[in-house]
């Protein structure tokens, strides 16, 4: 019934002698919210870059939305959305200009962009802010807007790199509502976070330590396996022994 949209098999990335990501294998299903956790420097970013087609793996296999990460990076890019805490939107463009720009680079027609942007602006309640520069928006709004822009072209998978860092608790939850909505529409969510309570919101999570996936399961089962009261303890238990950081 479930259909895997991300599959990796012994995916590895080496930089010289340094093995940044070592033989990671997992599958993520359509519409799943997959939490990708790890300590600073565990190899999360490197792994995520390979999955987004930005970095060619050293060995192993991976397909994203059915496309091969070695050969079909262009198709991969068409089928994924990406949002990070650092780069999300152009701050010196207005809300509408950002939507139009990102709609444009993903090849939406003017008509599609029009309907999409109206829909998005209503959903986020940004009617008053349409003509304002993004830089003037509060951080929480920016993050919600950039998520909506990342899924504007209805990608099969959206990669979120610490999307809620520094955001207030209420906006953080509103953000997760957006994630849930997208998942309900069948979008697969691949998310990294340093908030352990957010790890609980994921269907399944993996915890990476020193380039290796040390644990991968539902939050419930992970807590049971580690006899932990919350994800914080699970994470601490696994990452405490980490040899490298950043």
């Amino acid at each position: 019934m479930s259909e895997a949209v991300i599959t990796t098999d012994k995916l590895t990335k080496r930089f010289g002698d340094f093995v940044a990501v070592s033989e990671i294998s997992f599958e993520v299903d359509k519409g799943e919210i997959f939490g990708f956790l790890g300590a600073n420097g565990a190899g999360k970013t490197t792994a995520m870059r390979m999955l987004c087609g930005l970095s060619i793996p050293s060995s192993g296999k991976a397909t994203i939305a059915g496309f091969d990460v070695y050969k079909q990076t262009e198709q991969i890019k068409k089928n994924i959305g990406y949002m990070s805490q650092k780069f999300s939107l152009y701050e010196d463009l207005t809300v509408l200009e950002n939507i139009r720009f990102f709609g444009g680079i993903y090849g939406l027609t003017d008509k599609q962009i029009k309907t999409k942007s109206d829909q998005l602006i209503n959903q986020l309640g940004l009617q008053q802010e349409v003509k304002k520069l993004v830089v003037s928006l509060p951080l929480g709004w920016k993050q919600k807007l950039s998520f909506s822009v990342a899924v504007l072209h209805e990608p099969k998978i959206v990669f979120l790199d610490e999307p809620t860092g520094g955001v207030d608790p209420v906006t953080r939850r509103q953000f997760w509502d957006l994630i849930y909505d997208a998942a309900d529409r069948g979008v697969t969510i691949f998310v990294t976070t340093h908030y352990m309570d957010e790890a609980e919101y994921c269907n399944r999570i993996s915890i990476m330590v020193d380039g290796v996936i040390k644990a991968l399961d539902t939050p419930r089962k992970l807590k049971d396996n580690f006899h932990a009261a919350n994800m914080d303890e699970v994470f601490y238990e696994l990452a405490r022994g980490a040899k490298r950081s950043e």
Partner: protein
Amino acid sequence: MEQNGRAENAVVVRNLVKVYGKEKTAVDHVSFSVKPGEIFGLIGPDGAGKTSIFRVLTTLLLPDGGSATVDGLDVVKDYKQIRNRVGYMPGKFSLYQDLSVEENLNFFATVFDTTVEANYHLIKEIYDQLEPFKKRRAGKLSGGMKQKLALCCALIHKPVVLFLDEPTTGVDPVSRKEFWEMLKQLKTQNITIVVSTPYMDEANMCDEIALIQSGRLLSVDTPGNIVKSYPEQLYAVKADNMHKLLKLLRSYDKVMNSYAFGEFAHVSFKDPQVNISEVTDYLKQEGLADIELRTTAVTIEDSFIKLL
């Protein structure tokens, strides 16, 4: 007001206002005070005004209204003396990447007119972990190590008050825990620490906290008192479908507040005498299974959400 040559309060902020440009009020009539030797947490999301407050207190910015003192000294008038007495670790502090660990430390010691040896006892615990890498350039250190070095550099002149602006942002939970252990250690050295963080769970590590949002303080108290003053009984609910559960709770007329909280949803009810089994039955009726509903302890995050 002076006791043993030390001001009664390490930091006093009265009606502080900071405005950028014409209309952007970053800090809006903020008042709080920090007792000597305590860890005071300024807790709020990005853009709440934490950095502006820190910069006023470290004499880097002039306030547009109100006043503030650090160690009994006025931040405007006595800025030179304050600069001798505070340690500061700004949010984006990155050290000198091309200087070694040792050189960075020596440099900052000299800039503050002291030597590493003079206050070595203060940083010993932290520096011991850096010692093996002392010849390495700061740029080649790991994130956690950089942070430790930055803390050493901010401490090396034995400041009376230490200001740490978001020292744990973007840092993984394990390193965050370690960092707070270091701060607790410093507390025993009688250094007042003012720290800001967007992570609500770190509030409990502080003696006193100020919750801040959009330039305004929501509450200033001990974490215990803030939690205690939560007006309603709080419940934690769990079911097989979290997303559906949240939607149901939100539209349920008995519910006052509901939101996701880790694997649970936290709920408060309009009626303090609410019948729990009635709620459970309702959720079952709507098609949820494995329902677990129980009272739960309030956390700072709950208080923050409530106060917004």
